């Protein structure tokens, strides 16, 4: 029997935590766990409502709207939670929608 791996997600600004099964999208898993630690919009990488900053941990993403995640933001750990597949436990910060301070080019 293969026990599915789960990753723990800590949302520091909301002091909430939930777990995401390996291979599942972060926001999708949060909704299934009936948690409200990240804002939910389109769930498709288009609207930017679920924008987070990953402070610790590994992940990969599906394609995200350039309007919300510019290249330098992606490098700084910003991502759209609806497109994020965690690869380890993560420490994240939510509520970065329309956070203009992150959008300026470095």
């Amino acid at each position, binding site marked *: 029997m293969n026990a599915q791996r789960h990753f723990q997600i800590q949302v520091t600004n909301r002091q909430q935590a939930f777990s995401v099964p390996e291979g599942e999208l972060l926001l999708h898993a949060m909704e299934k766990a009936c948690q409200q630690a990240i804002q939910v919009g*389109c*769930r*498709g*990488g*288009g609207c930017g409502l679920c924008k987070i900053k990953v402070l610790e941990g590994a992940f990969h993403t*599906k394609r995200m709207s*350039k309007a919300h995640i510019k290249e330098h933001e992606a490098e700084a750990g910003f991502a759209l939670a609806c497109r994020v597949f965690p690869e380890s436990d993560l420490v994240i910060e939510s509520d970065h*929608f329309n956070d203009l301070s992150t959008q300026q080019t470095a």
Partner: protein
Amino acid sequence: MKKGVMRPGHVQIRVLDLEEARKHYVDLLGLIEMDSDDQGRVYLKAWTEVDKYSVILKEADEPGMDFMAFKCLNEAVLDSLAEEIRALGMTVTELPAGDLKDCGRRMQFVVPTGHTFELFATKEQTGKWGINNVNPEAWPRGLKGMQATRFDHCLMYGDDLEGNLTLFRDVLGFDLSEQVIDPEGNRIALFLTASMKAHDVAFIKHPEKNKFHHASFYLDTWQDVLKAADLISMTDTSIDIGPTRHGLTHGQTIYFFDPSGNRNEVFAGGDYHYPDHETVTWKAEQLGKAIFYHDRQLNERFLTALT
């Protein structure tokens, strides 16, 4: 006053993944794939439409709407309307025939809210899909998913609603069928029609320019809207809200998202509009009921989830 603008002709939607989008619009909405071009764009239609296509999907880095087009009565209307738009001080670009497959020349311009619109008069007509024009049967077999019958309208968010009203009503000949007015008397929503439909395009006030809220497709009945809701659950498609009814236009509706986060609507029923009808007014104090007639309150997403 009618100026020769006939109906919504097409909308070009940007998507992050063309294959996922194709599956969504074809298998779930039930649009029919008609063609593709060397830019990688995919051309789709709903089955009752006589023109070859009404939805164009294009892969891009940023979801949203490239442009929405209206079909006009004839080529002469294009030139006279282009001239009138230019007289407002706006730039009109003429795109040559064939720039979109099997479509005639298009007059393209950016409206005061920042959205790109175009007018055209000629597009290849392939007729209703799967139905003969002589002794036609009621409907074709082999339709998929929600079996959307037509591309109906778009709703967009932007800042300069009064500028759009002048352009669409006074120049392009649309009627203002419905509006939402805030306590200071400012318009915060416009529902505009070039036909008997309750709306062919709508705008809601928003600080940013050029935001896309949804593209909407018509279904025949409330039962079809409920079936659409079932299909959304069966396919684990991202839901926004519904099934419910709008106060504005009174359509029965459900909102959901395509795989790139562009909002779609399918709806049935709703009011009609003749040119002698007075504009219907909703007050902003009742905005919740105006948008979602049953819940009587807005979900936050309706105002913030845009592409």
